[in-house]
């Protein structure tokens, strides 16, 4: 005797405890198995690209802070690199080293949030998430010492950084690195070989290598599929060619691999910060830049390795004080293209784990 069944549409809505931000999926289910997924976004579309056409080049920096709101330093750095390429400004050495230190600390802070919410989705109700927030507070204390803000820094400017490091920064940084190493050991002991984590995320949501390149993925999502492509090594910018670091690469491309790639990247970031602090030179931190920058006519594209992937800015200038067009290449939007193909055939609870392992920020997807 056969039972008559019918597929139904479930709305995993914009306000949901497991979607990271306002993201909505219309899921067609047959029992518990997913047949079709349609992502809907745009609930945080604030029109940043259009607002940028009305502001001066330095006045756009607070707008770029709010793109990927957990990693503001790297957003500022990408935009300032694009402006410097257009206007032909050269950054002094000390400014470059400070930018590298800030970007790598920001990468650690952003990865802590992504890993914490991924572990939250896998079932450990809030404990690793809050522990990672406690460690992240150490990093935001350092940022507050430098520029006064906890979340939206507005610190990296065209030509360097806005002000020099205070005297107590380097000793505080060294103490923080010691404490962090102890925390990461404790974290790995508890969670690296954890049965429940492996059962929920090993073999789930596999992203094959050719598909990852075809959809334009970048960052940990691309590297977990086995492709060794990191902009800091493939197209070095700033002073990254003076440091020694490795690029962690995954094997299978499943959710567990994405979590491990992020953890290894945190350790490599600490290596870079230690080397940069040793080599830190003296001198000015910002080049002599006029109040209102007027780059010559032209267009350019500059990209960096942000925590979520390749963040790029395409700037078109017509010689005035505001850009003619500012386009933002958002890594989270490109990584999301493959969501539907990766989720079909899995069950509803795997959907949440797969979506959590992408670690997207809605401010970047919608802009």
């Amino acid at each position, binding site marked *: 005797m056969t039972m008559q069944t019918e597929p139904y549409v479930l709305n995993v809505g914009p306000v949901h405890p497991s979607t990271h931000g*306002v993201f909505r999926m219309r899921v067609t289910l047959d029992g518990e198995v997913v047949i079709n997924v349609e992502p809907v976004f745009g609930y945080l579309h604030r029109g940043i690209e259009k607002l940028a056409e009305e502001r001066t080049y330095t006045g756009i920096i607070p707008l770029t802070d709010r793109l990927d709101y957990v990693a503001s330093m790297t957003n500022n750095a990408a935009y300032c690199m694009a402006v410097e390429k257009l206007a032909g400004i050269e950054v002094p050495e000390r400014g470059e080293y400070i930018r590298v230190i800030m970007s790598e600390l920001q990468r650690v802070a952003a990865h802590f949030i992504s890993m914490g919410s991924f572990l939250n989705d896998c079932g450990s109700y809030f404990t690793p998430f809050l522990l990672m927030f406690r460690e992240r507070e150490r990093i935001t204390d350092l940022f507050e010492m430098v520029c006064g803000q906890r979340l939206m820094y507005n610190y990296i400017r065209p030509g360097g950084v806005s002000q020099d490091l205070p005297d107590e920064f380097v000793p505080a940084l060294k103490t923080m690195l010691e404490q962090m190493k102890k925390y990461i050991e404790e974290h790995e002991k508890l969670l690296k070989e954890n049965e429940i984590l492996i059962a929920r995320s090993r073999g789930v949501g596999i992203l094959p290598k050719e598909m990852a390149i075809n959809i334009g993925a970048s960052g940990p999502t691309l590297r977990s599929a086995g492709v060794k492509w990191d902009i800091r090594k493939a197209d070095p910018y700033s002073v990254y060619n003076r440091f020694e670091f490795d690029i962690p690469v995954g094997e299978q491309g499943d959710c567990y691999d994405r979590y491990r790639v992020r953890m290894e990247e945190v350790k490599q970031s600490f290596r870079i910060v230690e080397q940069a602090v040793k080599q830190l030179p003296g001198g000015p931190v910002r080049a002599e830049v006029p109040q209102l920058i007027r780059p010559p006519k032209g267009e350019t594209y500059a990209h960096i390795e942000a925590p979520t992937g390749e963040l790029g800015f395409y700037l078109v200038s017509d010689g005035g004080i505001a850009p003619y067009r500012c386009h933002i290449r958002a890594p989270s939007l490109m990584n999301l293209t493959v969501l539907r193909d990766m989720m079909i055939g899995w069950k509803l609870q795997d959907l949440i784990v797969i979506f959590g392992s992408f670690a997207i920020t809605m401010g970047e997807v919608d802009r």
Partner: protein
Amino acid sequence: MEVTRPPFIYSDKELDEHEGQVVENLKAASQTPFPDPDKWLVEEAEKQGVFLTTVDAVINWGRSNSIYPAICFPACCAFEFIAAMGPRFDLSRFGMEILRASPRQADLMITAGTLTWKMAPNIRRIYDQMAEPKWVIAMGACAVSGGIFRSSYNVVPGYNRIIPVDVYLPGCPPRPEALIYAIRMLQAKIRKRANIGKD
């Protein structure tokens, strides 16, 4: 009694158009901000001062010390709210221990993030689903007045176009200590409320 139900909509295109129509209707209906819900405080103070019975005082003490916030996290201020819930700036010492996912079990809606016209009908629906008594704290510059994005084509200039707001908290983003101050202000307001004899 005849109950009429709307027809079920299944295709993606029709769903999109139906939702888009809801957004346009809400946009046309929200051209002026909601009036302040605090008017009764001013009128009472003009008479002889607020006079509460002991039962009222006990009920208000219970309500103000056990507020459950609802989840409403569009954007960046959400991370300051989560940091306020974290181990450093502990919100559970003020009674706000748990974050309730279901709006039916929540009293307080802390709106942490920019509101866009596309998201507005969903926020209105969550506010309507919360049970009385309920309060709203508008957190951040974007919630108070649209903030840095005010002149954009998709941004609502402040939450008070859609729902009535009790406490306004400026900052971009406001520090967790500022959020705690706003919650203390709200608790002071709840304690002045006369429950018995009020409709």
